[in-house]
């Protein structure tokens, strides 16, 4: 008999035990491990997906930030450029103003210099004129310049109109101080006496007359009291001469041509009658 029934039963039992044992020790642990691993992998993939999504979100956020930053930078750059432009314009204006001021100052300095030059010129011219006149007069008429000037001054005094004399008289009478005769040169005793006599005839003798010498006086001789003044002066001659010299120089510098030949004759003005 090939089949032993006891063995069959035993083997059935053995097989069932083996099934139970293998289920317990082989299939369940292995399948559990596989499931756990698959779960882990799924979790990891999900995690990676989530991280990727997060990274993508952050990337977008950073991109937006970058764009905003660029925009802001451009705006600020434009602002700075604008400010620089304004600043540049202001600085240019300031520099222009400075240059203008400097130019004005230079012009002023030039004018001052010209003015002082003119004064110097007029003084030296006057002295020259005086020197020439003195020489000419002494050569031609054997009289001194001073004497002639005194005579002319006296002539002028005598030639004053009645209204002018009245005005002058009242003015000199009102004044409390003495009458002052100033000359650019020292007068001789004879000349002083002549002047005193002439003034006395005209204004009365009650006033004391003082004589003073001012070498820088432009006018040759002047009579002053209480702000009123009678003078003979060559200032006008000199002014006219200076004007002509200026014109001459100007014309020469403009045209570089020869100076005009005609010289206006110097005409003496009358009494310089001024007062305040």
């Amino acid at each position, binding site marked *: 008999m*090939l*089949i*032993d*029934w*006891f*063995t*069959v*039963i*035993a*083997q*059935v039992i*053995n*097989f*069932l*035990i*083996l*099934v*139970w*044992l*293998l*289920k317990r*020790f*082989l*299939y369940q*642990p*292995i*399948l*559990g*491990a*596989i499931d*756990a*691993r698959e779960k*882990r*992998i799924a979790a990891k993939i999900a995690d990676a997906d989530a991280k990727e999504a997060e990274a993508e979100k952050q990337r977008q956020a950073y991109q937006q930030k970058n764009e905003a930053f660029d925009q802001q930078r451009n705006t600020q750059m434009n602002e700075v450029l604008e400010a620089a432009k304004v600043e540049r314009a202001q600085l240019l204006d300031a520099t222009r103003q400075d240059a203008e001021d400097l130019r004005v100052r230079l012009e002023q300095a030039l004018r001052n210099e010209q003015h002082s030059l003119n004064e110097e010129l007029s003084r030296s011219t006057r002295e020259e004129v005086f020197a020439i006149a003195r020489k000419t007069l002494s050569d031609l008429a054997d009289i001194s310049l001073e004497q002639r000037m005194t005579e002319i001054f006296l002539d002028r005094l005598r030639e004053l109109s009645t209204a002018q004399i009245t005005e002058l008289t009242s003015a000199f009478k009102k004044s409390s101080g003495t009458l002052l005769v100033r000359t650019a040169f020292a007068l001789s005793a004879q000349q002083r006496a002549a002047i005193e006599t002439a003034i006395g005839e005209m204004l009365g003798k009650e006033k004391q007359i003082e004589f003073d010498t001012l070498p820088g006086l432009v006018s040759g001789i002047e009579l002053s009291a209480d702000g009123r003044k009678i003078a003979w002066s060559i200032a006008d001659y000199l002014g006219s001469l200076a004007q002509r010299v200026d014109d001459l120089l100007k014309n020469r510098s403009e045209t570089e041509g020869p100076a005009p030949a005609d010289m206006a004759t110097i005409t003496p003005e009358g009494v310089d009658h001024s007062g305040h």
Partner: protein
Amino acid sequence: MNLSPDNIIYWHMGFFKLNATIVFTWGLMLVLVLGSKMITRKLSTELQRSRWQNLLEMIVTGINQQIEEVGLKHPQKYLGFLGTLFLFVAMASLFTIVPGYEPPTGSLSTTAALAICVFVAVPMFGIEENGVGKYLRGYMKPTIIMLPFNIISEISRTLALAVRLFGNMMSGTMILAILLTITPFIFPIIMSALGLLTGMVQAYIFSILATVYIAAATRVRSTKPENGPEEATEDKTESVSRS
């Protein structure tokens, strides 16, 4: 010369006896259980894992896949029974390379026991899946005339299952023994290697047939034939039966 390891009796007391079949079965059980226990004691759920764990995972998932391919929808439910069938028969064949070893599957008692297990398991799984009434009505399909033929088919295929495995395993051992007496060198090694191959094929056939029977009991009887998979299952049954 023993035709069956049943005849090698180590201990005897009345109805109870301890023959080589039972002893070698115990040995196989011990090896299988201890091996599994040792490997699964420190299982890794990480991506890194030991080679032994890898081997076991391959075997288990391979069996699982096979069961699924036959057409059982929840392979893990049947994995314990069908996987153990395969592993036991395969290990029994594999150990033939050990000198002095007698495969328990070379005993008709063992193969009959396994076939009886299958014979019982098929209706059990069928009833579990479909209920008693529905399962039993399956025997009367397509007509009631087919009832005796269905029953005969059920019994005969179980018998065939037992005898096929027994014949193959027994013949392998027998041929080896005979060849050893005729040509003691080289040739028995070739036959031994061939025997290993045959053993593996038999293990596969035995377990896949059991799977197909169970699949047929749970699916084919429960639902009307509707689509391809059923025919495929039948075809597979046919082709496997022929071998």
